[in-house]
């Protein structure tokens, strides 16, 4: 029921609270991560489990029976932090099912959307969720007093990334312009020029953010991490043989845990870490990233902000130099109707598989998110942290465990979906 008699705050004496909130699920959640998870630590046994308590939305079921054109509209709502990644993965899956090859312009515009997505998500995580741990604050906005210059730069980056999403995707959260085969609406030359100006103006903020995060002291931890990312149609590991994306289902197993509504993923039965640190492990290590310490994922994100900022500028310059044609590509005759769509989302490799009937209605959907793959690694690293901090006070160890979970930037919402 929606109340019709709205009582203003000052006269509102009703519900003089008699009780305090007692719901047991209320206090245990890890703050400053996306979604609802908690760490259950057994100090005596020196063991730790990551409980996931998010409700199941059953997206793979919601999609079945709906038209293909709604897939990217619905799946972007899996996650408000990385909606563009889900949007593009679904489009990619449906286009593969229909044998559609998108135009060069559409491809560039989508790559640009992805740059915006990476920066949006990394900025949100670094400044509002992770950084407070490092400088003794609670809420990210308190930075405005302690580090006013840095906070201003955070806002500049957020604004710049949101602007990419607005101009190309139609909105900062949940795209409106994308469709099967291309774009409903593409930005004008003038829009792109203005966007380029905004990106150029953010350069100082990008650099200083990178400097700041390069100078932070990351907690010590040594974990035997296997890092995995998607490259050129392959799932690539820093320790083992790579496999083609088409074989994702045979290689990424999802296990049930009785303490979690999210499945726990493994790659060929091993724990893997995906995301910014994993992606950078395949590139030149200019910033002394420690690839056996997951806390360095924070620095990796700051580096990626700079990389995707540069990439976005290049894409816009390319778009401005050509005659962009916004045409929506059509399906081929007799398509396979089965498609896999993948993308490197901010938190790592994202897989959407969609099957259609001949009327282009969805008959099957499978989604594996980056956080599903990371959950298993988070537990492994948390266990390593417990073992390597035995001489610390438990309070400090608890804080470090929360920081570690945050460093992975888990998206619990995505992991349950």
């Amino acid at each position: 029921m929606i109340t019709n008699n709205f009582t203003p705050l000052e006269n509102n004496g009703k519900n003089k609270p008699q009780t305090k909130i007692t719901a047991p699920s209320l206090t245990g959640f890890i703050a400053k991560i996306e979604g609802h998870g908690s760490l259950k630590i057994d100090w005596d046994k020196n063991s730790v489990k990551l409980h996931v308590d998010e409700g199941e939305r059953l997206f793979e079921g919601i999609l079945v029976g709906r038209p293909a054109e709604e897939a990217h509209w619905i799946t972007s709502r899996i996650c408000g932090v990385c909606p563009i990644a889900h949007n593009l993965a679904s489009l990619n899956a449906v286009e593969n099912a229909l044998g559609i090859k998108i135009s060069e312009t559409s491809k560039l515009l989508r790559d640009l959307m992805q740059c915006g997505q990476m920066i949006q998500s990394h900025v949100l995580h670094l400044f509002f969720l992770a950084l407070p741990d490092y400088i003794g604050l609670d809420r990210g906005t308190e930075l405005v007093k302690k580090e006013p210059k840095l906070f201003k730069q955070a806002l500049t980056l957020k604004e710049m990334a949101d602007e990419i999403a607005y101009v190309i995707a139609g909105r900062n959260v949940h795209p409106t312009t994308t469709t099967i085969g291309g774009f409903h609406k593409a930005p004008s030359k003038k829009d792109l020029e203005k966007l380029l100006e905004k990106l150029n103006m953010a350069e100082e903020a990008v650099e200083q953010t990178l400097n700041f995060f390069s100078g932070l002291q990351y907690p010590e931890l040594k974990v035997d991490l296997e890092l995995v990312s998607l490259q050129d149609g392959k799932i690539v590991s820093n320790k083992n043989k790579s496999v083609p994306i088409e074989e994702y289902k045979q290689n990424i197993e999802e296990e049930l845990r009785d303490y979690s509504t999210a499945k726990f993923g493994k790659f060929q039965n091993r724990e893997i870490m995906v995301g910014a640190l994993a992606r950078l492990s395949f590139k030149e290590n200019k910033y002394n990233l420690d690839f056996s310490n997951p806390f360095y994922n924070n620095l990796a994100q700051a580096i990626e902000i700079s990389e995707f900022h540069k990439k976005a500028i290049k894409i816009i310059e390319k778009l401005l130099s050509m005659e962009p044609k916004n045409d929506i590509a059509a399906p081929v005759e007799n398509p396979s109707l089965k498609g896999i769509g993948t993308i490197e989302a901010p938190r790592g490799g994202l897989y959407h598989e969609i099957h259609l009937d001949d009327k282009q209605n969805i008959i099957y959907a499978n989604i594996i998110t980056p956080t599903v793959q990371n959950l298993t690694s988070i537990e492994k690293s948390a266990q390593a942290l417990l073992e390597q901090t035995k001489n610390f006070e438990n309070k400090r160890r608890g804080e470090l465990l929360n920081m570690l979970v945050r460093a992975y930037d888990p998206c619990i919402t995505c992991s349950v979906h």
Partner: protein
Amino acid sequence: MEKPKIAIYDFTDCEGCEVKLISLREKLLLLEKKVEIVNWRLGQEKFEPGPYDLTIIEGTPITPEEVKLLKELRENSKILVALGACAGLGGIPAMMPEKDRKMWYEKIYTSQYHPRGIDAVPLSAHVSVDFIIHGCPVDEDEVLNAIECILSNKKPNYRDYSVCYDCKLANNVCRLLNDKQCLGPITQGGCKAICVSGGSPCYGCFGIREEANISALKKIFDPVELLKMFHTKTKL
């Protein structure tokens, strides 16, 4: 005078409406000066167990724990506001019919799994809601408008015009005139017609407007399928 105590909670959802709160940027800082945010899991560790002057809730209550918490929050809050389509209308999660959940749990998780969720419904299915800030996701200006009204002891109002009005302001070509489906005429405005401006249909995430002429729209096309997106579990 003591600052009003605000609590921000999220149930099961995508958290995109909270991302919109952070996207307020400088305006969020101004707002923070007028209030005390005593609980916001996504934004801070600090937590006070109530009572709250204003509780803003995002997401649908799906699990029994969420329903219990929602009822306690209602008891402990002077004003309770639903933030976004999931809290206000049930949103995308409500597209899953309750009777189908068992089948999908088995298909997605296998029969070994012990499900937590019961049914995704809007907040108003369990408690009284004082105001809904509509949208999937919410619009930043609508959020500010509603909160500022509440802080100055005014009743925030629902928009008494349809998305068509927003569309005119945005200079959009009417979708219906081009034989494209759209729920704009029966949907409450305030969204700046952002989806139609991007080339997508209006799926009605701002809720059905008062005195909507649904039968007239039915003469043009059958809106039933489009309405499923956000209105499966709301009464029309």
